[in-house]
């Protein structure tokens, strides 16, 4: 049925909750304190950089910085580790 079923029963429940005791949250939990997410990179910037549509998400600004750094450091692939890590971390948090 899926790899996640094995994870639910065998490993920790933080990533996958117990299917017999699924948590339920009220719909507006923490609402006044939660702010709506804001896109840092504008859509015109993303379209100017010709970023693929699937990657125009809330981490787009990290991707734009990474692309610019890769273009500036061109023949050398190891110049942009920090920015790549920042983008990857943002995707991970996503």
């Amino acid at each position, binding site marked *: 049925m899926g790899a996640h079923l094995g*994870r639910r029963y065998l490993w920790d429940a933080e990533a996958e909750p117990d299917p017999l005791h699924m948590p339920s949250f009220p719909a507006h939990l923490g609402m006044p304190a939660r702010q709506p997410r804001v896109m840092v990179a504008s859509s015109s910037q993303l379209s100017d950089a010709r970023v693929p549509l699937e990657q125009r998400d809330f981490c787009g600004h990290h991707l734009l910085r990474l692309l610019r750094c890769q273009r500036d450091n061109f023949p050398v*692939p190891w110049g942009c580790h920090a920015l790549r890590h920042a983008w990857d971390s943002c995707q991970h948090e996503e």
Partner: protein
Amino acid sequence: MDLSLTLNTLMLLTLATLSTPILFPLLSNNLKNTPSTITNTVKTSFLISLVPMTIYIYSGTESLIFLWEWKYIMNFKIPISLKMDFYSLTFFPIALFVSWSILQFATWYMASDPYITKFFTYLLFFLIAMLILITANNLFVLFIGWEGVGIMSFLLISWWHGRAEANTAALQAVLYNRVGDIGLILCMAWLASATNTWEIQQLPSPSQTPTLPLLGLILAATGKSAQFGLHPWLPAAMEGPTPVSALLHSSTMVVAGVFLLIRTHPLLNNNQTALSLCLCLGALSTLFAATCALTQNDIKKIIAFSTSSQLGLMMVTIGLNLPELAFLHISTHAFFKAMLFLCSGSIIHSLNGEQDIRKMGGLQKMLPTTTACLTIGNLALMGIPFLAGFYSKDQIIECLNTSYLNTWALILTLLATSFTAVYTIRMTTLVQTGFVRIPPLTPMNENNPAVTSPITRLALGSILAGFLITSYITPVKTPPTTMPLSIKMTALVVTALGIALALEISKMTQTLILTKQTPFSNFSTSLGYFNPLTHRPSMTNLLSGGQNIASHLIDLSWYKMLGPEGLAHLQRAASKTATTLHPGLTKAYLGSFALSIIIILMSMY
């Protein structure tokens, strides 16, 4: 500077350079090709093609070249257009690099062949057809390339056409590919009728696409990429010379099916039926091929089944909706698989034509460069960390592990990964290590740079390709980053288990105990009983069905029972009855006259 103009010009220049050895001898009386001129042409094309790839990596420039429009009928025009995007710009240098190495190796391998120039010309035709397929923006142009590579595969597999097995193998390749072509033509027909175009740009959205054309595409990929069901031609294709196996049946032609699915991926994008079919078919193919490779004794057949298994893995990646990852695996696989074939070719020639690994051994000391590169290729194939295969294979298995799809496909793929390790280590131990089982006098020689430089070049590619491609190209779909350590290590653990198992089993062979035949070993040795179960019955059923239709249905039924003879039969009953009315006696005729007159008189009154 207009980068797209430079891009277009250089890509067309690459294709034009490749066609010069074909065109120039036709235009001049004195100019003749030689193997070295063709090799140098391919090398030049490779160097030229590096520039467009660099332009793409630097600036992300893609372009579309529109060459001519065939105005077939009033409202259906077929533009001959080429697309220079990530896939074609990256695959061109890789295909040309591998082809250059293989052609240089073939100058040594086929040196004793009287028609070596024709061989090289065939390889060049194949390469041009493959590159047309890669750059096609239009299913029509892709079909031209598709058929071109099929025909050249037929001609090259049956290169030694005096051998009956080679001819059978070539026929097998052509017939299985033809069955796949039915699927491609089905899809093209649907596209032409529903959307009035064959352009890749104008493919309809997945929600408007019925599943049938997608099944046609998957059938085409099954035929060309030797997935389970249409796979027997790939091991049989090893009858061809080793450079042919290295170029066609490992790096370039067999990936054409997967490449078709990558190109038409927008159609497949969310169609769960098609994606699940790809996933399950790929998983089944990879496990089946890995199982068959476990008991093979011919070194080329082991590598052929390994190719089939990796193609199944690429199909699994398509089924996971990750075409870029499938393309990454195609690119890295091209390097180490071609190198494995070249190493096997060097070993075969050095042992005077011996292909059985049970009659090789201890070659590490005798052929150091070749065996070192063979080891590197095998490690890359297994997905050992930080070689080329690791970047693509490990990521595929991670994505499979963390996806919410079929656990059955996952288990099959993991099992196939461990089997890969098993047969690879088996090949390595039997060929390179252990006791020497070769005849005492062999033409063993790897002094020739035509042998060592292609192999070492491809070894360098096998080590660096994965690292370079992943450094320069940012992934389009985010790879999964959240997973427990056990999931992350699954591929590595499974491979390590396979290595341990193989080493343990190879120790058992040194105690000289006769192995029992179990059903599993018989299944593996006879390639899953697939060939005898399918080849004869399908042909006999088809032919006898055809004979029944022709003789029983058409001849017997239409012409005899329902046609003229049937009518005659019907008439016979009526005429038998009517004959009694004409006995030839005058009294009977007078009686009939009287009867008619009485009836007329009665009707008047």
